[in-house]
Every structure is written in C-alpha cells, then in structure tokens.
C-alpha cells in the first residue's frame, strides 16, 4: 500500500473502501472472532456464577473467584468482553454522532473506560487469588 506522491493510484482509488474511520476490516474481523469466544464464555459465566453465588454474598463470591478455572475464565471474559463492547460502541458512535468534537471525545472515552475497567477487573481477580 503506497500512499507516496509517486503512487500511480488515483485519489479516488486510495480513499475507496476506507470509510469515515479510515479502516474497519480489522474491527469487523475482531468483532466476529471475539463474539465466538463470548458465545461460550458469557453463558458459562451467567449460569455458573448464578449457581455458585446464590445470595450475592462476599464469601460465595471469593469462593467462586478462588477456583483457578473460574479465575482464568473470568479474566478471559472481562478482557474479550470489554474489547468486544468497545468495538461495538465505536460502531454506534461513528453511526450516530456527527459533531467532530463530541465524536472524538466519545471515542476517547470509549477507549479509556473499557481499558481501565479491564485492567482493574483483571487485577482484582489476581488480588483475590494472590493478595494478602
């Protein structure tokens, strides 16, 4: 992909299929790949967490997260889930928000919030397992 001035491609040829965001194929594929993982992880979490943590109590929650398989699966759920939802929300923002400043502000927020929450939540699962 050469965008240099010596390129033989026309201006129209260079911008075609790139859309408002400049790219999108990577997001399109990531959205679908993550959805396959979440189609397994999300129902697993909903059912097993509901069955293990019936009374929403602190001890039942710690007990659930202390199981190594549960801890790994919850970390995967958080990491993949928050990435998936960030991509989805990016799509919605690009579709509905026209004002450049609002759009950029929301896109930044939609990048920062899932990232901070994912790191915080994964660190929390590790603290439950390895913390003092």
């Amino acid at each position, binding site marked *: 992909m050469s965008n240099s001035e010596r390129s033989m491609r026309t201006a129209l040829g260079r911008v075609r299929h790139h859309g408002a965001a400049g790219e999108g194929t990577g997001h399109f594929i990531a959205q679908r790949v993550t959805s396959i993982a979440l189609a397994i992880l999300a129902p697993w979490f909903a059912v097993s967490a509901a069955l293990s943590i019936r009374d929403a*109590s602190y001890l039942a929650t710690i007990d659930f997260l202390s199981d190594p398989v549960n801890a790994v699966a919850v970390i995967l759920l958080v990491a993949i889930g928050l990435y998936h939802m960030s991509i989805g929300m990016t799509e*919605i923002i690009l579709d509905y928000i026209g004002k450049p400043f609002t759009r950029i502000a929301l896109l930044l927020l939609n990048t920062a919030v899932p990232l901070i*929450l994912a790191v915080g939540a994964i660190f929390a*699962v590790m603290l439950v397992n390895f913390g003092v």
Partner: protein
Amino acid sequence: MAGAPSPENRPIAPHLSVWRWHVTMATSIIHRATGVGLYGAAIGLAIWLMAAAAGPESYVIVDTILSAWYGQVALYLIVAALAYHLANGIRHLVFDTGAGLTPADADTSAWFAIFFAVAAPIGMWALLTFGA
C-alpha cells in the same frame, strides 16, 4: 449523467417514522440496544470484581444493590439482554457464511432470537428456584 436526479430528489434513508416495522428490522435495533445495555452490565461486572478484591466492607455496597428488588430486576434484564445478544449474534455469524438470508429464514431466526430472550431469564429463574 443527464438523467441523474437532483440532490433534493434522491432517495433518502428509510426514516423510522415512515417505515413499516418488521421483525428483521426490530432484531437489528434490539441487537444494538441490548449491546448498549450489556456495556452497562460489563461495567457492573468489573465493579463487582473490584469490590470483591477490595474486601468485605466495600463489597457490602454491591451485595446491597444485587439483593435489592432493583438489583434483581437488573440481573433479570441483563440475562434477557445477554440471551438476545447471544442468539442474534450467532444468527449474524450464520448470515456471515451466506446462509439463512432469505426473507422467510431471516424472519424465522429473528423470532427465535426474540423467543430465546424471553425464555432464557425464565429458565434461569426456574433453574435457581427449583434446580439443584
């Protein structure tokens, strides 16, 4: 391009207010709405994990919310939204292969996704109430 319509006469995107509702259109909109709802649910999931890691004193807040009637209603709606987003997401993965795109097939699978969203939280409630 002598016969090209002027900008004022060009066909416009189907506005919701003048468009006859049909089920495949509803599934698309509900998919986005449930996606936004699950964004909130994922934020709640991260907060739940961080509260558990922070200790019993902090976890009391989460326990109180989840045990209250509005917390229970929220969990019920989250299960419904997750079930819908899951069923319709799988439907879209099938669409991506090129299958199930005829109007009859798309209508049938659309109704199935809606049915699953209604049935799944009832099934989850039944599992927790009458199950093991």
